[in-house]
């Protein structure tokens, strides 16, 4: 049986797809067979960030409708043979996603994979509620600003009441906070909420803090999950997140304003 992870937020554009790609790649690099599914029907972009957009033949909706098999639709990553991508459809409308259809696909994937990462669309509509419905774990991606925190809180309420686990009275979904696009400098200036502020409002287990980083945009432009950019701050932060998720104890980084070393000051690094 696979562990199903939903990457969710409520608010749009906070870094869910970036996180899904990095998490899935990170888990696969650790040797776990991992599938990552794009639930953003109509606005697919996971395949772009994974760099496999030119290899899409069939998609998630085709599989649900029985127009292709799962194996035909799954795209094997070129960099890591433990990682598979199930892209979303750009042409279909969201109505094609049904609880039963999604359940069947996840059940079939579960036989073959250790982790299934579900990249949720923004909002609290059908696509988002379906992405989280079958989840075992939820990574709630939040930016350090009030509206994003409020939407995450809303999403947490939905996770706690509308998921399969909630409906069946099973152990609740494990919820993790991932704070992304964090800028210690701006926190210091009072322009952003701090890690503590967000923790205080959401009271959630902190999985990690991903700094605001140019590396993210570079990575998505070149179709490489940022976790593969091992030199970058964001790449390292995501590696830490994967290790923490797998149960390792890793101290949090990228929370405080970096003091520039003598070298840094001399060479402007």
């Amino acid at each position, binding site marked *: *049986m696979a562990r199903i992870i939903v990457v969710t937020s409520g608010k749009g554009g906070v870094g869910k797809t970036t996180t899904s790609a990095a998490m899935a790649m990170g888990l696969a690099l650790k040797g776990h067979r991992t599938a990552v599914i794009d639930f953003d029907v109509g606005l697919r972009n996971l395949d772009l960030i994974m760099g496999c957009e030119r290899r899409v033949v069939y998609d998630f909706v085709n599989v649900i409708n029985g127009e292709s098999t799962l194996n035909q639709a799954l795209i094997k990553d070129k960099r890591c043979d433990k990682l598979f991508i199930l892209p979303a459809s750009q042409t279909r409308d969201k109505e094609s996603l049904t609880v039963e259809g999604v359940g069947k696909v996840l059940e079939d994937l579960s036989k073959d994979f*250790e*982790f299934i990462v579900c990249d949720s669309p923004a909002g609290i509509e059908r696509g988002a509620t379906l992405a989280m419905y079958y989840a075992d774990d939820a990574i709630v991606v939040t930016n350090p600003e009030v509206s994003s925190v409020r939407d995450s*809180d*809303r999403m*947490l*309420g939905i996770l706690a009441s509308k998921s399969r686990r909630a409906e069946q009275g099973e152990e609740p979904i494990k919820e993790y906070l991932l704070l992304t696009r964090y800028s210690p400098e701006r926190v210091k200036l009072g322009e952003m909420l701090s890690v503590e502020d967000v923790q*205080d409002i959401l009271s959630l287990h902190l999985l990690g803090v991903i700094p605001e980083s140019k590396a993210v945009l570079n990575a998505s432009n070149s179709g490489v999950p940022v976790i593969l950019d091992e030199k970058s701050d964001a790449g390292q932060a995501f590696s830490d997140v994967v290790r923490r998720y*797998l*149960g390792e104890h890793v101290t949090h980084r990228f929370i405080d304003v970096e003091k520039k070393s003598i070298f840094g000051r001399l060479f402007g690094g």
Partner: protein
Amino acid sequence: MPASHSESAEFVNAFEIKSGAVNLPVLKLLSVDMEYVSSQLWQKVRQAPEFFRNAPMAIDIHSLADVDIDFVGLVRAMRDCGLIPVGLCGGAERQNQAAQAHAGLSVISLARHELPPPASAPKPKAAPPPAEVHTKIVEQPVRSGQRIYVAGGDLVVMSQVSAGAEIMADGNIHVYGTLRGRALAGVQGNLGCRIFCHDLQAELVSIGGHYKISENIDDSLRGVPVQIYLQDQSLVIQRI
């Protein structure tokens, strides 16, 4: 199950069986005419559809000692209204058997809760029976967009109540985390009810319909433990 997860102790047990007390609403059946029951149930549920949606409910047939009851019809009527009938109590042996056999209802006993005497019995004058204690305890955070209402009882929230959440009770409300949302006690008009909270940052507090919004709450009372009650028609927020 991946290796990494079996390593962490949390995922080793497939389940635990614990004994726990749950509070359930009880449908006290007073009629055997299922059409009549069904239509009244509809009206009742229509008044507060959200509160009754998928609500588990026990059936008490104490008042209908040893008459034939159409359990199948009753269960259907309840399900049609979105309720989830979970068990039967107060029945005679014969009734229990019929309910189990035909409607799949389990037989439960109302542990220690004394059943109130039937309506016709004379009420003892000297010592009135203690008011039925009904308290709902919520351990998880109440998140933005969630609503909790306790009919005929008190509400205790052990965790926080987020901004955008709403908690309501016919009785008192206690919040042991931060109260950022709305809290309404005594919503059926009981003006003696109170709200107690550990850290007041509420959007709105109300007792029996007398309310105060965040803007009108004194800054000195924010972020501190308080109790809220009504005195001479006005809401008093007092530090405790």
